């Protein structure tokens, strides 16, 4: 991948304390994100997939600095995000914005669409002069495919898909360079999903945005992403471009995940080998030692519970991409 790095995460860690007893003493830590590193290039989409509880949403919030990190470093355009304070941090926030999952709860029901989309201008007062703000909001509504005349309406007057468009308009209001999309389409109906995905792609090409696209739906992620990272229990287990991950996955977890996705094509029934994993994802409060997947992995050997496999380039048949498995080998799933 060539191009300029806009966002660089180095060994990000977020542990939440587990408190118990009358004294609320800390008895343990939930290791939600435990050492995640990646680079995001200008104008690209990096998809992050994983099952619930793998830490993908926490990661998204850390990238926004909505969560203070337990450890690690985040650099945006060469600036260390976590060491910024006050006005500098506020300025930085203009460049990284977020679109939330649930369009029903992420919009304030007492504010009009104009107030919601225009709120970023209240906080960043120098972004758009006061007299032009209303016009700018209308431009934004038009940009995301809403009627600019609806500026005085309230969120409940819109459908789910339209509300997500409002959330997106708010996200792009300050001309950010990076947008974190945290499950932006998973609350929407199938026929509406496509509209929002198309809108995100269109905005990306018009505004040159870079997306971190967090989702559990592997089909949507493949559709929109240039590169994809797979998370399991707070760690990235595989990272590569879209074709490498989907056509030549080398990590057993990625392989199992891909094989479990039902394809909308009945002729493929019984045509592909399904890897059915046993058991559930272990608790992030007490993750397995060394390789975290070894308790469910069919390839696991002794070394997997002793030595942690590093996320390094490993051959995938045609090229090489990052994978964290001692026994990484490509397998055709789709």
């Amino acid at each position, binding site marked *: 991948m060539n191009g300029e790095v806009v966002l660089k995460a180095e060994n990000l860690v977020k542990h939440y304390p587990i408190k118990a007893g009358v004294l609320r003493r800390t008895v343990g830590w939930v290791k939600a994100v435990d050492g995640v590193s990646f680079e995001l290039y200008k104008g690209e989409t990096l998809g992050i997939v994983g*099952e*619930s509880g793998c830490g993908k949403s926490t990661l998204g919030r850390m990238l926004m600095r909505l969560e203070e990190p337990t450890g690690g470093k985040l650099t945006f355009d060469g600036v260390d995000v976590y060491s910024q304070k006050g006005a500098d941090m506020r300025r930085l926030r203009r460049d990284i914005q977020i679109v939330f999952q649930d369009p029903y709860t992420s919009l304030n029901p007492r504010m009009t669409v104009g107030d919601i989309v225009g709120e970023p201008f209240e906080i960043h007062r120098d972004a758009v002069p006061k007299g032009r703000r209303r016009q700018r909001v209308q431009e934004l509504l038009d940009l995301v*495919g809403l*009627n600019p005349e*609806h500026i*005085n309406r*309230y969120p*409940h*007057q819109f*459908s789910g*898909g339209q509300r997500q468009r409002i959330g997106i308009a708010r996200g792009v209001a300050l001309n950010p360079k990076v947008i974190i999309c945290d499950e932006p389409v998973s609350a929407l*109906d*199938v*026929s*509406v*999903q*496509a*509209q929002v*995905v*198309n809108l995100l*792609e269109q905005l990306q090409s018009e505004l040159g945005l870079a997306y971190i696209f967090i989702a*559990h739906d*592997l*089909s*949507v992620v*493949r*559709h*929109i992403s240039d590169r994809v990272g797979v998370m399991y229990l707070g760690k990235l287990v595989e990272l590569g471009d*879209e*074709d490498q991950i*989907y056509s030549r996955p080398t990590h057993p977890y990625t392989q*199992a*995940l*891909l*094989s*479990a*996705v*039902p*394809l*909308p*094509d*009945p*002729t*493929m*029934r019984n045509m592909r080998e*399904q890897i*059915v*994993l*046993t058991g*559930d*994802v272990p608790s992030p409060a007490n993750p397995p030692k060394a390789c975290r997947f070894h308790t469910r992995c069919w390839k696991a050997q002794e070394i997997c519970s002793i030595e942690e496999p590093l996320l390094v380039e490993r051959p995938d048949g045609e090229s090489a991409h990052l994978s964290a498995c001692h026994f990484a080998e490509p397998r055709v799933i*789709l």
Partner: protein
Amino acid sequence: MTLSAGTGGAPRVELLDTRGVWKPVDGLLLELDELQVEFRTRDGVAKAINGVSFDLHEGETLAILGESGSGKSVTAQAIMGILDSPPAFITGGEVRYCGQDILKLSDEERRRVRGPEISMVFQDALSALNPVFPVGWQIAEMFRMHRGMNKSDSLAQAIRLMQRVQIPGAAQRVKAYPHQFSGGMRQRIMIAMAIALDPAVLIADEPTTALDVTVQAQIMQLLADLQQERRMGLILITHDLGVVADVADRIAVMYAGRIVEQADIFELYAQPAHPYTKGLLDSIPRLDQKGETLSAIGGLPPNLMNIPSGCPFNPRCHYAQDICRVDPPPPLREIARHRLAACHFSELLLTHNPELQVTQTTEAVEAHLERELQDPVATAGLDHEEDIERGVEPR
């Protein structure tokens, strides 16, 4: 399955041996005939189901596919007899089980059908299970209430069932409470309860929607195994075109409370005969293909309080013509062998006939929707008074 808290082992209902009372004729288990359900609310009458008919045979998997508000779950609840009334009222049609209309049965007779004959797995196991009783007790309740078993026998049966649905350490975990299980395990417990009395029909309402994809695969596999083992008729309700393609024999696509297409699964995916089905299939991103821009269906599903006249899909349909906008809506009719569709132009769509013209693009649909939104009366969930106050003129 409403779970009333049983206090002892003694059965409250008079036990009748219902085995053998219900005998399917030629393997035909369930027939729905022009079922109609409406919800009478303060804001008006929502027509949730407007004449749904289908049948289900032994050992068959029928998928009911639809988006939210299409009436798929209401159909299931009507079959089970668990609709809340009011606000829901069944205003017409029949649900025949083994030839007899079960809508006409008394509440008591209906209870004897619910569980031993027709049973259901719900979407959200955490809210469907009772949090204050151990799971074993809840599974065993089926045996206590319907079979009059005592506590220890029924608990032994519960353990057996928990083993059958592959819950590890069933004997130890029989006394655990629902919150002590993971989502996948809770769904297995729901399935154990549903199959406890060996029903002939199992309705699974979005059984895997709340689950992760690797767990979804386990649950679907379990359902398929159980169905094969017991030759159950399975009604799978879902919005996921992928899950359907993997397991269903036949599929019924619902839109605005009507079945718009019904066909063999292979034929439907190969050649959809209704523009809505075609739109759905075209709009989903594919895992096994990297596609271009998705061809979205424009617009929104209709408000059930104000279903468009004519074909309910006409405002969003790419092929809509004048005939589509006038009542009566196109009936669900046989357009080929074993294929039903409710569209005036199904034959043309099936054969890719060039005479079938695109009359409105996605953009036109969106523009139309804008106009609808301007008209305060026509749109879903709008605060009408507020609009009128602010002087939004209807066009």
